[in-house]
């Protein structure tokens, strides 16, 4: 944001160029029964950056997000063709356990969905699933995760309280902390701020800027301004196709496809 000195800006640009690809999707088709929901998707997603999926409702952006941690597996009659490669492994191949995949690729949902348990138990839920029982170790994970989600200072004295005693924005940050507690590489956010007030939204947007230093963030948003504000790369979807993806500033200032331009200038959608 700050433009007072030249040096960091240059650094920023070099860093942008250096982004390593972590997710590589090649010729991917997805069908719900006979409905062709995603068509020949080709897309690369850079590591340790924020990638935003934008597009009108029903364009397939959430569907694509859910292929990245295989949440679509639970919908009957879903069929996927093509390659979804994360860090060099085809996640739909037999060598990948879906449990491990979801540990590495965390998810935050549109509606904050804490468990009806204490704040502590919500964050410890994931580590416990994966076999951590040691109290001291869990304490440490809970504290670290809540700190990373910028919630620790607000809740450190009430860890035993029900998660439902928190406000909507706090609940959503709790869900982020819960996702971080299993130490993922990638964090998927499915319209994670769309049910929140502007101040809570801002907090989470700021949080993503912190988190991208350590995690790869892929977010679906119906808010183009949000994508423009906080993402490094933006992907534009239309009718199940990836129309265009590029560095965010370039996609918004100089889109190469006419449909992208129409959408971001508000001609439809």
């Amino acid at each position, binding site marked *: 944001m700050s433009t007072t000195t030249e040096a960091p800006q240059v650094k920023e640009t070099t860093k942008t160029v250096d982004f390593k690809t972590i997710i590589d999707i090649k010729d991917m088709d997805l069908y719900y029964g006979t409905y062709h929901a995603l068509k020949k998707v080709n897309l690369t997603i850079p590591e340790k950056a924020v990638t935003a999926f934008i597009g009108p409702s029903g364009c397939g952006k959430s569907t694509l997000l859910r292929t990245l941690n295989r*949440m679509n597996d639970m919908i009957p009659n879903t069929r996927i063709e093509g390659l979804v490669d994360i860090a060099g492994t085809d996640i739909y191949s037999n060598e990948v356990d879906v449990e491990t995949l979801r540990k590495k690729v965390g998810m935050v949902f549109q509606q904050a*969905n*804490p468990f009806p348990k204490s704040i502590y138990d919500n964050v410890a839920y994931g580590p416990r699933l994966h076999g951590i029982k040691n109290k001291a170790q869990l304490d440490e994970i809970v504290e670290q995760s809540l700190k990373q989600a910028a919630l620790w200072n607000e809740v450190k004295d009430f860890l035993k309280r029900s998660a439902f005693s928190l406000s909507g924005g706090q609940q959503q940050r709790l869900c982020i902390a819960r996702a971080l507690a299993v130490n993922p590489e990638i964090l998927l956010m499915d319209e994670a701020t769309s049910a929140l007030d502007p101040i809570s939204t801002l907090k989470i947007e700021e949080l993503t800027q912190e988190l991208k230093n350590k995690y790869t963030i892929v977010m679906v948003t119906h808010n183009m301004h949000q994508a423009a504000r906080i993402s490094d790369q933006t992907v534009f979807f239309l009718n199940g196709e990836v129309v265009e993806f590029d560095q965010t500033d370039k996609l918004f200032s100089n889109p190469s496809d006419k449909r992208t331009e129409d959408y971001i200038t508000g001609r439809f959608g």
Partner: protein
Amino acid sequence: MNNLFQDANRQQISGRRRNDLIWRILFLGATLFGIVALSALIITIVTDGIARLNPDLFTNYPSRRASASGMKSAIVGSLYMLCLMAPISFVLGVGAAIYLEEYAPKNRFTRLIQLNISTLAGVPSIVYGILGLAIFVRTFGLERSLLSGALTMTLLVLPIIIVASQEAIRAVPRARRDASFALGATKWQTVSRSVLPSAISAIMTGVILALSRAIGETAPLIIIGAATYVAFLPESLFDTFTVMPIQIYNWIARPQEAFQDLAASGIIVLMIMLVIMNVAAIMLRNKYQKNI
């Protein structure tokens, strides 16, 4: 201001109001009918039975002399039956509900099973008695034992427990399952750590209400041959037994007035037990709701 209300058709409005009043009285009457009938029942039973509601009723075995009769064996029989039936029907009923809701593929076969369970929930209890007689008493050779009775009663309450548990499980929001799966949980981890804790209070309520229905059942146990006169406590699962409603039925069938009063005090005991179970169900539900 006057002009605003001048054109009101007051006659038409008072007609509407009268109509409203009539409906209110009709609905009140419908409610009172049940309350009055229930009060009448309680009052007659209490006036008949209160005199015999003394410790002897709980400590004496049945006798051919009304003055020496008690329902110790029936009360103990009912409690034993409850203790046997509750864990078996809970495990089988909730297990089946979890399978049907969480694991079973949503195909025609599952729907067929579902339809059958719902139908079974409405089958008359005497039919279960015949089934129990054929399976447990004859085929398995369990004779007229406590175990036969408990298993027959389990069959009777299973469909009710399955349906109630399924509804409780279905009411757990999908988002709570998604949250668990998205953290890398397996199906069973999700069910045991996320779904069941949310559903357990509703399940327990359903189970207790189903069990309280079973406690009041007579017909199936008479069919499988529960004794009407038992002057000892069952010492093993294979002993003969009796339960409260059968004891009451036995007493009420006698011509002597003294036995009729005894039956009334038996009914009081049975009703108190049912009220306790229902209150337990309510308290359990409230307790778990508070924890959330």
